[in-house]
């Protein structure tokens, strides 16, 4: 007699009727690191999406705080020398210039004046998701400004800039990955499916593109881009170029996968039933590597983000007023900053976390998808 409770029977039936996607998801859920990374990733994406709402100020020059340039981060606290309060607050800052300071602007913290944190404050106007015109921000202080991550030399709030930078990088990454993906599918797909001479020729093209050095290419492109080009257009072209040089690796993966799957017996079985090429591709080949493709997409993302960062950092990519990590880091290149204004580097931590989250989720997906066909034991 076997001990078969109805519960274990239901569980077994669920396993038997689970599709590949469900099996992969079940395996993914078991990996702690990947699940935590996935949560972190979702949080960052949402904060990027809602960046205008979450940041107290406009990240461009328009929203700068003239009174608090190169200002240190202001952490809200509950208690100070004068006692504790229920609501968090910061101390107000004042700027003065007098003969005592040699006529230079000096910023001083006024410990007697408290600025209480408020939520859902009215502030600068923006368009949420690019469509919805709003002017409410998650938090702010009345009678002053709060800079959680400090400010840069122009007085721009680094916290706001960071959130917007995350979103910009995600946008650039998405477009780049999408273009790379479409090209890789088309070229890798044709090469892998048809094989033979077509494959040989496409391989040569793929290898040629891969050997193009990125930096000189970008320098050439930067030289050709007119300085009057709007930030948006610039942004679009950068994404385009990143996609165009990113597809070879993905194409190779697609091709290899197709070459092996194409010879599987269930494909032959379909062909012997009279299936046309398009049926085989649609019904068998494409679904077979959806899981791989998703993994590859997720893993390529950080590369796009880092490429954009590097390019913007050396001035070949995005520029002000668009904020991206590269642009933010450009301002951090002087010794002055490195010695005195270390808070300029706070965005770096965010980016490390973002990239790591992508990598962990990608790895987790790949591990979950890999034993995807239960082979004979």
């Amino acid at each position, binding site marked *: 007699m076997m001990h078969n409770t109805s519960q274990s029977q239901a569980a077994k039936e669920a*396993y*038997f*009727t*689970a*599709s*590949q996607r469900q*099996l992969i998801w079940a395996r993914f859920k078991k990996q702690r690191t990947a699940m935590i990374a996935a949560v972190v990733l979702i949080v960052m994406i949402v904060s990027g999406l809602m960046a205008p709402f979450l940041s107290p100020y406009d990240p461009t020059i328009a929203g700068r705080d003239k009174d608090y340039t190169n200002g240190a981060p202001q952490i809200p606290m509950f208690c100070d020398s004068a006692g504790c309060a229920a609501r968090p607050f910061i101390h107000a800052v004042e700027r003065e210039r007098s003969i005592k300071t040699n006529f230079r602007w000096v910023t001083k913290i006024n410990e007697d004046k408290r600025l209480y944190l408020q939520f859902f404050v009215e502030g600068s106007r923006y368009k949420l998701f690019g469509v919805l015109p709003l002017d409410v921000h998650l938090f702010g202080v009345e009678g002053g400004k709060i800079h959680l991550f400090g400010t840069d030399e122009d007085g721009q709030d680094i916290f706001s800039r960071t959130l917007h930078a995350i979103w910009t990088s995600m946008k650039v990454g998405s477009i780049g990955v999408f273009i790379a993906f479409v090209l890789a599918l088309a070229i890798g797909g044709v090469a892998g499916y048809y094989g*033979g*001479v077509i494959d*040989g020729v496409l391989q040569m093209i793929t290898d040629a593109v891969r050997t193009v050095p990125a930096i000189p290419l970008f320098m050439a492109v930067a030289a050709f881009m007119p300085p009057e080009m709007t930030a948006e257009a610039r942004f679009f072209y950068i994404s385009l170029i990143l996609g165009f040089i990113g597809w070879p690796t993905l194409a190779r993966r697609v091709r290899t996968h197709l070459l092996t799957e194409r010879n*599987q*017996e*269930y494909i*032959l*079985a*379909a*062909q*012997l*039933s*009279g*299936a*046309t090429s398009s*049926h085989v591709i649609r*019904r*068998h080949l494409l*679904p*077979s590597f959806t899981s791989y493709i998703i993994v590859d997409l997720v893993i390529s993302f950080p590369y796009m983000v880092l490429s954009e960062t590097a390019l913007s950092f050396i001035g070949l990519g995005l520029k002000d007023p668009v904020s991206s990590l590269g642009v933010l880091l450009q301002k951090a290149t002087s010794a002055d900053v490195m010695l005195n204004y270390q808070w300029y580097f706070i965005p770096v931590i965010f980016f490390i976390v973002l990239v790591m989250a992508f990598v962990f989720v990608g790895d987790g997906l790949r591990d979950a998808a890999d034993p*995807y*066909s*239960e*082979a*004979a034991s």
Partner: protein
Amino acid sequence: MTSLVSVENLTVTFPLGQRLFGAPPTLRAVKNVSLQIPKGSFFGLVGESGSGKTTLGRAILRAAPIEDGKITYDDGSWTCNIADMTKAQERHFRSLTQMIFQDPYAALSPRMTVRDIIAEPLEVLGLTKTREETDMRVREIAGKCRINLEHLRRYPHAFSGGQRQRISIARALATGPKFVVADECVAALDVSIQADILNLLKQLQHNLDLTFLFISHDLSVVAHVCDYVAVMYLGEIVEEGPTKQIFANPQHSYTQALLGAIPSLDPDQRSRVIRSDRNTSK
């Protein structure tokens, strides 16, 4: 004895590798082979590795590159030269012929339910008009192959090797073919399961009036289930005839070596050679 499939001087060659200029070296897997497969028979094709038996089976189904020769299919109501078919002919041909593969794990798409796997040939060839009709056909053939109807909504990973092979068989029979090539379809199964599948195939042949080309390297299995057998060696047929005759009285030295190599279950007897003085019926 009418032939369902008639192979004449068939040569199948595979290119080895690619060359940018000039023709690449080739491998001649099947050399000038001629064969008659009688209608309604269970025809065995035996050989070791490199004999070309799998290639011959695939060539008959137009799944291998035919260099030269003619293969005629004639079931009494439709005929054509398989080596030279038009697209329309090929479509009809596909509904009349099918294949069962060796590896039960590679032959089923892991992403489709059993019902979809069995239904695929029907849908591709457009043999059924509605989903209900397809479902009915699927249930019918699954029942004949002794597949539990409850299992139709499961995925292949839920099944053992023997059960998967039954699903493969059901898929092959879904379109109601007349000719089925079984390519080593019991080689990967355990002995106790092999017997089950072979019995099923014989039963189906009887009920559905099928002709089987049974490709195998296992002579004892072929001896039991096949009416006729052809022995292949290095791309050529060295001997063929009714099974009992071949096993009782092998003429070609290779056939004799093959039979002599089967290990006997009797420790005191070296090989399971059938003694020619045995009184075997028919």
